[in-house]
């Protein structure tokens, strides 16, 4: 590939796959589920071209454990799925978090609970940000809003995962996986060659043995490891909180939205401005760690806070934690696998504005 940046028209799912390959990923294990199938299709075609391995697992349960095994050798490894499959991966994720093994998991979110539907959704917010399975762990989670950002986050995620020796999840959504946009792609890179002092492969050269493990049978040992993880999450929070923001510096309505609903909100902000309502948008890019600070800062200014999200109300909990009683929080849920419209959001901005904000 040329070193000159060039834009290629790509589907979001393909961009996720290419971004990961460019970021040094050489092993992909997965299981079919709509709406993420273009990722395994792309990997099956392209992994052999870069000397990597694509393997279709018998289930998402097996897929995440294949990821666990391959990643334990120090390789850059990923899987992708959608809600029902990600649910099956929670067990393996919890073990990888407990055993401190890095990987990338892409969730192209569909609607639920149960089989739900294959329409676009953000209703795995809780599973992502509270999840990583059972126990006292979290899952570092990033949410792209454009195909380019999907590419970039997948590209970068292996550096993040290895920095913290921890799984990273991309919480994408069906619409983003399926839509096409131009993407500036990088040359396909290799994983850094530096030795990972924890990676398995046998006691080569007579080195000391290594153990990857999440079992701490003694109470003191487990408590110590839980504290180590908590300190890790504090470090992750210091270093990885990401968001973008735009709009008026003196907003009357603060909008908080991530992913596609954030893009719909941007158009709605123009309509609100035309009808004389000043707005500002904070778009979380990292969902865990959550950007509490900018939301808190703008909520001090704006009497109204409107959350637009593709669920019955999940991120709104985090927004309420950030806002406290400084601003009156309203929710526009986007349900059923559909996209919202700028008109609908603009209407809601007008409604919360007229309803009155926080008590003086």
């Amino acid at each position, binding site marked *: 590939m040329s070193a000159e940046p060039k834009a290629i028209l790509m589907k979001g799912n393909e961009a996720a796959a290419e971004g990961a390959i460019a970021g040094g990923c050489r092993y992909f294990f997965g299981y079919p589920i709509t709406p993420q199938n273009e990722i395994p299709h792309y990997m099956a075609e392209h992994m052999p071209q870069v000397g990597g391995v694509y393997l279709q697992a018998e289930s998402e349960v097996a897929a995440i454990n294949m990821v666990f*095994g391959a990643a334990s050798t120090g390789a850059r490894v990923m899987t992708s799925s959608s809600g029902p499959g990600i649910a099956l991966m929670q067990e393996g994720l919890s073990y990888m978090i407990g055993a401190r093994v890095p990987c990338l998991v892409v969730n192209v979110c569909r609607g639920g609970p149960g089989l739900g539907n294959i329409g676009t959704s953000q209703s795995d917010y809780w599973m992502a940000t509270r999840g990583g399975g059972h126990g006292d762990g979290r899952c570092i989670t990033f949410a792209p809003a454009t195909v380019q950002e999907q590419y970039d986050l997948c590209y970068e995620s292996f550096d993040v995962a290895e920095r913290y020796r921890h799984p990273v999840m991309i919480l994408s959504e069906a619409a983003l996986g399926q839509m096409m946009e131009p993407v500036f792609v990088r040359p396909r890179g290799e994983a850094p060659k530096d030795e990972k002092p924890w990676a398995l492969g046998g006691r080569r050269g007579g080195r000391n043995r290594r153990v990857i*493990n999440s079992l701490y049978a003694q109470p003191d040992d487990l408590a110590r490891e839980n504290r180590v993880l908590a300190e890790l999450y504090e470090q992750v929070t210091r270093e990885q909180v990401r968001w973008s923001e735009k709009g008026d510096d003196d907003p009357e309505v603060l909008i908080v939205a991530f992913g596609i609903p954030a893009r719909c909100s941007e158009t709605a902000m123009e309509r609100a401005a035309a009808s004389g309502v000043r707005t500002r948008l904070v778009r979380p890019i990292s969902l865990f760690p959550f950007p509490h600070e900018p939301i808190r800062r703008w909520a001090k200014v704006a009497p109204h806070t409107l959350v637009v999200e593709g669920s019955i109300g999940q991120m709104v909990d985090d927004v309420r934690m950030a806002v406290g009683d400084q601003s009156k929080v309203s929710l526009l849920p986007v349900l059923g696998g559909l996209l919202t419209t700028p008109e609908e959001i603009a209407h809601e901005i007008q409604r919360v504005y007229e309803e009155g904000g926080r008590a003086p």
Partner: protein
Amino acid sequence: MPETQPPVEIPEGMEVVATRPRALTDVPFTYCPGCTHGTIHRLIAEVIDELGLDDRTVAIAPVGCAVWIYEFYALDAIQVPHGRAPAVGTGIKRASPDTMVFTYQGDGDLAGIGLAEVTHAAARGENLTCFFINNAVYGMTQGQMAPTTLPGQKTTTSPRGRDIARDGHPIRVCELLSTLDGATYVERVMVTDPKAIRHAKRAIRRAFEVQMEGRGFSLVEFLSICPTWWGKKPDEAVEWLRENMMPYYPLGVFKSAGQAGGEQAA
């Protein structure tokens, strides 16, 4: 931490005729009196020593009584979710094909919650080795009915004996896996007398050799005893195994070098 053997002074006129295998650490086993895990652990370690594999082997620890094998083997090791060892092993082998990988799994782990993972690893001809410890009961969780619990066998969750009408039939893992084209070597052995132990060691060696030669999936099943949850003294447990388990789970090679068949153990 290198788990080295403590230095021993050899008195004059004496010589060392037996040692702990290098592939084992000095950590004492955690098993109940009479349990056969310790024998099987040692046999695997001896074969690793003899084949010189300790510098390129990864042991995969299950969930169950044997979860602490990562403490017992002086090898790289990974502890994995219940039943998922063959999937984790698949990932290791695909990313690092020249690493030797063995799983060590009980009957609940391999034949219950992990039957899909071992079956598909075998079907893919995954180049790894599974050691399957069948003692017809869940040991670590207090003696519940296992997929291999025999008809009529009493456990803590089949207190009046396994009722086929209610609980269904036991699973014969070797017979099942030997139907798969991807399985290269499948044998059932036991370790309850010296002759059987010597034979079991040959089976372990053969399984590792299949993997060393890149010939695909190998599995050795060990009929084992659980005196604690069978409620028997060790010698009674051995007798019970001979009288009850061996007729249901016949010993022998069920698959070898791609040949299906019922070659019986000597």
